[in-house]
């Protein structure tokens, strides 16, 4: 790291751990405040929370404080160890995804050569967490929610991976920094002014990635696992207090994680055309640019979430297996051909 002071390895680890926690909490808090409290409220002709702080900006603190002081309830028949383990698994998987996202030329936690492969693999750990939560709650509604989640999340892993393969083919590398550099330095039909953000050439892949991400995050219209009007809260029914807060944070933080992946893969990451790719000040400006792009993508995700009704489970699976996967396979085919030809 090109810092003015020299830190020992263990000090760097501490800084990185705090930074990754911040990375998770900051987007989660921003999304809850901006989208859940304000955007959904304005869509519904109301104002949202207004009492805590000016225009309700401190409502987040109030919610956290409220959740922390609640009674710790574990159902009598629940499998205690698994019940307590589940939220931590999901939060851990979200934290691990942020580790490979590059925030600037030198601002990253680690620069794996299989960056995107690792990110997609690690995001699947949350499926285990959801299944454990559903089973260990000793509640039929939770069980239904957990089983639905298992089917849905596994089904939608495939379109997501296949959509990303198109980007990898075009970039030529799985390294996240490499993908950002490829988009920055690339050209479209000879015009290099704005680089080559893959949303333009991989538009189909982008749409598939967004739809699959919506399903991975169990947001409406793919929120069968947490279908509020049917199975109360799905796999989260029996959780309260701090554990529910962890689920909540994990849900919104994973929106941020997938938004970060989408921004890096399709929108150009921390780079804006016209800026320097290797300068030192980009370590400060880069995160801001990336954050803006994450907010745009999260805005789209939440906008769709608050508008549409939800799919039924078998319709969900049909969309994944008969529509998205063939489309993404065709996308890969076309990308490979065009990459060789041009």
């Amino acid at each position, binding site marked *: 790291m090109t810092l003015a002071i020299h830190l020992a390895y263990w000090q760097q680890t501490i800084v990185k751990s705090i930074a990754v926690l911040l990375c998770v909490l900051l987007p989660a808090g921003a999304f809850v405040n901006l989208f859940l409290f304000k955007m959904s409220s*304005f*869509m519904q002709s109301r104002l949202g929370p207004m009492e805590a702080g000016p225009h309700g900006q401190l409502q987040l603190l109030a919610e956290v404080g409220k959740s922390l002081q609640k009674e710790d309830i574990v159902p009598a028949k629940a499998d205690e160890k698994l019940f307590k383990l589940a939220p931590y698994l999901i939060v851990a998987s979200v934290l691990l995804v942020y580790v490979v996202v590059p925030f600037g030329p030198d601002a990253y936690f680690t620069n794996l050569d299989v960056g995107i492969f690792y990110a997609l693999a690690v995001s699947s750990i949350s499926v285990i967490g959801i299944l454990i939560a559903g089973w260990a709650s000793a509640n039929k509604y939770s069980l239904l929610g957990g089983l639905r989640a298992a089917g849905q999340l596994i089904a939608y892993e495939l379109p997501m991976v296949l959509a990303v393969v198109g980007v990898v083919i075009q970039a030529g590398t799985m390294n996240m920094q490499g993908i950002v550099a490829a988009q920055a330095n690339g050209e479209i039909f000879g015009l290099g002014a704005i680089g080559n953000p893959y949303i333009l050439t991989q538009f189909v892949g982008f749409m598939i990635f967004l739809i699959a991400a919506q399903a991975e995050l169990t947001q409406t219209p793919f929120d069968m696992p947490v279908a509020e009007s049917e199975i109360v809260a799905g796999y989260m029914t029996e959780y309260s207090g701090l554990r529910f807060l962890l689920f909540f944070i994990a849900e919104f933080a994973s929106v941020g994680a997938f938004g970060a992946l989408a921004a890096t893969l399709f929108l150009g990451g921390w780079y804006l055309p016209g800026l320097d790719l290797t300068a030192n000040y980009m370590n400060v400006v880069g995160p801001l640019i990336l954050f803006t792009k994450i907010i745009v993508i999260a805005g789209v995700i939440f906008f*769709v979430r608050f*508008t549409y009704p939800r799919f039924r489970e078998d319709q969900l699976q049909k969309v994944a297996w008969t529509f998205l996967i063939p489309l993404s396979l065709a996308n890969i085919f076309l990308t490979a051909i065009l990459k060789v030809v041009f």
Partner: protein
Amino acid sequence: MPPKPKVPGLIKGLGVTFKEMTKTMFPNEGLKKLIPSPSKGAHTVQYPHVKEAPPTRARGVIALLEENCTVCMLCARSCPDWCIYIEGHKYKAPPRREGGKERTVSALDRFDIDYALCMYCGICVEVCPFDALFWTPEYEYSEPRIADLLHDKERLGEWMDTVPEYEPYEAGSEAKVKKLPKKGAK
């Protein structure tokens, strides 16, 4: 049979919510359109900072004009919940003229309405033949203790200050607008 929509329905749905969001955030007309003022655009008001006035006929609370009450007990008898408690006594008043008979006058001892039981139906107000009970649109009288919801004579008399005047009727109606009795006129 509804016709097949031309624009894909999914996009139109997004358009509806987007339009509502912008309507809430930018409700001003003309040049000021770009200034966001969601407090004005939203359909909700921030109670208790802003209070909306209910219509004139809204059934908020019942007020008692004690001078008009003759303890006929019609209201207590016609209440579906039997939530009006009345006690009175008769006393002999001196005759109006010289050499006349003594008059029996009813006096009201106790007139309580239990708002924990009251169904806000208005039958008592309607059947009172002497115009002693009136509706007012006041609604902010909730109490921390249920026992405090029993309003006695004095409290019901205080509500009389909030009774609004009767509204004029629509054209074509034959009903006559009633007038509020002035206090002290009996």
